[in-house]
C-alpha cells in the first residue's frame, strides 16, 4: 500500500479552498476512481489523466488507484484538478518523488496529448494558495502572466505533464510542445473617452464629478439624445485609479469569467448590462458552478444601467442587497458563492415611454398614467439609495454647433476628484468609512460635524414643509460635504447646501 498527496484549489465564487489530492495505490486489479464530490467534468479526469500520462511516456501503475479530494464534503468542479490528480497518482506509483509534490499546489487541465491547458479562475486560485502559506504553485503556461500577478508565491508554468514530472524527479524526455494559450478576448476599448467631448452639459458634468468624488449613486433622466450614455461612459475615467488590492479583486473576477488576464488594470471597470438582462445575468448564476454576473463584474467600478426603467422589476430589486452589503451571494443546492460587489450605480432613463415629456418644442404622446407608471418602474427602496437625481436636457443648438470644446477635461476632473477623496479620507480617518456616500446620517446631523443653523436653514425648512424626508435630508448633507471637499472648504456652507438640493429633482429651496 502506498499513498501520495499534493494540493489543488477549488473555487466557490472568488473564494479559493485548498484541496488535498490524495492518491492511493492498492494491489488489486486495475481501476481508477476519483472520490470527494467531483462533478461530471472532474470525474472524466480519469480518462484525461490516463491518456496524458501514457502519451507523456509516464506509465500509471496497473493497479487500483483511488484519488480522494479532501475535504470530501465540498463540491468540486472543473478540469483544473487534472494536473494535481496526475501528479499524485504518478507519485503513488513511484514515478516521481512524493516529497517533491507534498508542498506544491498544482493547477491545470490535461489534454490527451499530455499538454497542460489553461483554466479559468487561476488568479483567485493562486491567491488562495499564497494566502494559505504555500510557497510554490504550478500553473499552465497559458495562465502564467495571470498567476504572476499574485505577490509572495513562486509561480512555475509548465506546458506539458512531462515537464512537471521532470521537475519532481521523473526520468522522462520532455517533448518540445507548443503551449496551449487562452484565446485573447476582444481588444479593450482603447478609444479615449474625454470629458471635454461633452458640450453644453455643465450641470450634468458637475454632477458626475460630485458623484465620482463622493461615491454617490447617480440617476440621470432626460430625453433621448441628451447625452446620458455619453456622460456615463466617461465616469470610470474620472474615478480614482484602482489600488493594487482592488485591481487584483477586479482581475480575479475577470479570470473567473474565463477572460485572459495578463496585467492589472488600474482603470475602474464599467459594466453595461442590456436592459433585457435577467436576474441571473446580473447577480451571477449557473446551477453547479457560480459565474459572476454584471454586478460582481462592476466591483470597484461602475454599474451603468441604460434605460433603467426598461429593466425588469425583479432584476432591479436584485441590486438592493449588493448596494447595501457591498457583496452578492449566489445560493445554489450544495453551495453558496460569494462575490464582492462594491460598485457605483449609474442609472439613466427617459422621462416617459416616448421620451419627450417635459421637453421644450417636442410633443409627448404618452397618456398621463403611462408617464406616472414609467417613473415608478424604479422601486422606492432603489431610489432611496440614489443620492443624485438629475434631469438632463438636450443641448441647445447654438452650443452644439459653436465648435468649442468644454473646458473640463478628464485629466482635470480626475485631479479634482482625487483631491476631494483625499480630504474625505482624512476627515473619516478615525471611522471605518472612506467615502462621503458611506457615512451614516447620524454622524452628519449630530456631534462635531453638525452644521451651524445658518447654513442648514434651507434644508431644515424643506424638512419642516415635508418636501424632504429625513433620509433625503441625510443624502443632501452627504452631497454637501462632497461639494465642500471639491471646493476645498473646511465644511459646507449655504452655497453647498443649495447646490446639493439642486441635484435632487424638484427640490428648490
Amino acid at each position, binding site marked *: 500500500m502506498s499513498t501520495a498527496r499534493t494540493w489543488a484549489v477549488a473555487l466557490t465564487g472568488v473564494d479559493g479552498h485548498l484541496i488535498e489530492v490524495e492518491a492511493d495505490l492498492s*494491489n*488489486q*486489479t*486495475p481501476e481508477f476512481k476519483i472520490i470527494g464530490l467531483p462533478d461530471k467534468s472532474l470525474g472524466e479526469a480519469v480518462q484525461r489523466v490516463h491518456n496524458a500520462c501514457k502519451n507523456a511516456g509516464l506509465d500509471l501503475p*496497473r*493497479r487500483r488507484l483511488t484519488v480522494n479530494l479532501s475535504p470530501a464534503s465540498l463540491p468540486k468542479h472543473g478540469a483544473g484538478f487534472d494536473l494535481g490528480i496526475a501528479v499524485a497518482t504518478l507519485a503513488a506509483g513511484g514515478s516521481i518523488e512524493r516529497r517533491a509534490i507534498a508542498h506544491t499546489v498544482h493547477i491545470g487541465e490535461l489534454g490527451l496529448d499530455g499538454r497542460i491547458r489553461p483554466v479559468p479562475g487561476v488568479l483567485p486560485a493562486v491567491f488562495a494558495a499564497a494566502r494559505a502559506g504555500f510557497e510554490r504553485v504550478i500553473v499552465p503556461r497559458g495562465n502564467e502572466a495571470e498567476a504572476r500577478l499574485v505577490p509572495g508565491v513562486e509561480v512555475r508554468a509548465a506546458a506539458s505533464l512531462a515537464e512537471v514530472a521532470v521537475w519532481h524527479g521523473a526520468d522522462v524526455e520532455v517533448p518540445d510542445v507548443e503551449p496551449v494559450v487562452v484565446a485573447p478576448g476582444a481588444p479593450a476599448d482603447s478609444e479615449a473617452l474625454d470629458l471635454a467631448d461633452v458640450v453644453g452639459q455643465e450641470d450634468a458634468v458637475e454632477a458626475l464629478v460630485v458623484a465620482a468624488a463622493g461615491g454617490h449613486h447617480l440617476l440621470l433622466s432626460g430625453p433621448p439624445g441628451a447625452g446620458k450614455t455619453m456622460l456615463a461612459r466617461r465616469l470610470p475615467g474620472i474615478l480614482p485609479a484602482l489600488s493594487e488590492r482592488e485591481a487584483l479583486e477586479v482581475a480575479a473576477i475577470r479570470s473567473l469569467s474565463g477572460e485572459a488576464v495578463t496585467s492589472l488594470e488600474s482603470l475602474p471597470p464599467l459594466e453595461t448590462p442590456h436592459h433585457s438582462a435577467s436576474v441571473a445575468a446580473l447577480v451571477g448564476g449557473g446551477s453547479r458552478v457560480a459565474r459572476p454576473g454584471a454586478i460582481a463584474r462592476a466591483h470597484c467600478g461602475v454599474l451603468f444601467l441604460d434605460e433603467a426603467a426598461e429593466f425588469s422589476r425583479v432584476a432591479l430589486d436584485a441590486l438592493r442587497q449588493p448596494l447595501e452589503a457591498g457583496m452578492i451571494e449566489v445560493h445554489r443546492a450544495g453551495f453558496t458563492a460569494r462575490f464582492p460587489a462594491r460598485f457605483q450605480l449609474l442609472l439613466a432613463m427617459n422621462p416617459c415611454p416616448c421620451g419627450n415629456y417635459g421637453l421644450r418644442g417636442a410633443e409627448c404622446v404618452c397618456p398621463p398614467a403611462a408617464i406616472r407608471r414609467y417613473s415608478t418602474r424604479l422601486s422606492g427602496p432603489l431610489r432611496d439609495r440614489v443620492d443624485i437625481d438629475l434631469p438632463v436636457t438636450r443641448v441647445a443648438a447654438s452650443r452644439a454647433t459653436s465648435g468649442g470644446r468644454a473646458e473640463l477635461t478628464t485629466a482635470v476632473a480626475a485631479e479634482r476628484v482625487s483631491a476631494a477623496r483625499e480630504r474625505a479620507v482624512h476627515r473619516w480617518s478615525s471611522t471605518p468609512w472612506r467615502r462621503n456616500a458611506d457615512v451614516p446620517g447620524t454622524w452628519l446631523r449630530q456631534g462635531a460635524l453638525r452644521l451651524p443653523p445658518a447654513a442648514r436653514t434651507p434644508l431644515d425648512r424643506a424638512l419642516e414643509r415635508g418636501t424632504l424626508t429625513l433620509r433625503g435630508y441625510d443624502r443632501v448633507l452627504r452631497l454637501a460635504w462632497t461639494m465642500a471637499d471639491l471646493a476645498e472648504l473646511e465644511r459646507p456652507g449655504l452655497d453647498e447646501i443649495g447646490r446639493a438640493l439642486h441635484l435632487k429633482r424638484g427640490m428648490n429651496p
Partner: protein
Amino acid sequence: MAAKDELGRAGEERAAQHLRQHGYTVLDTNWRCAQGEIDIVAVHGAYLAVVEVKTRRSASFGHPFEAIDQRKRRRLWALAFAWRAEHPDLARGLELRIEAIGIIGTDPAVGLLEHLSDIS
C-alpha cells in the same frame, strides 16, 4: 489447438510452476462447471487460492490485469464457492481468496510474470 489457446495453456503451466515455487500446493487445474472454468486452485497456508491466469503476447492491447474487471471478479467468486461446494473435504477450514497472475511475453515460460494475491 488455436495459437491463443496454446499461449494460454503455456501461461497456466508457468503460473502453476510459479505458485509451487512460492509454497502453494496446486489442488486442481482447469476445473470446469456450468458457470465456467477455474484456471488453478491451490492451497497456501490457511488460504484456498482460486487463481485466474491471463497471458498476453504484449501489452499493446492492454495489460492482462485490465481484462479482470468487476464482472469477471464476481464470476470468479461464484466459481470459487462452486468449487468449495464440490470439494468440501479439501476446502475444510480454509479461507477463500481470489488471486490473479498476469504474464506478458511471446514465450510465457520466460515472460514477465506479475502476481496479485487477494483481489476483492
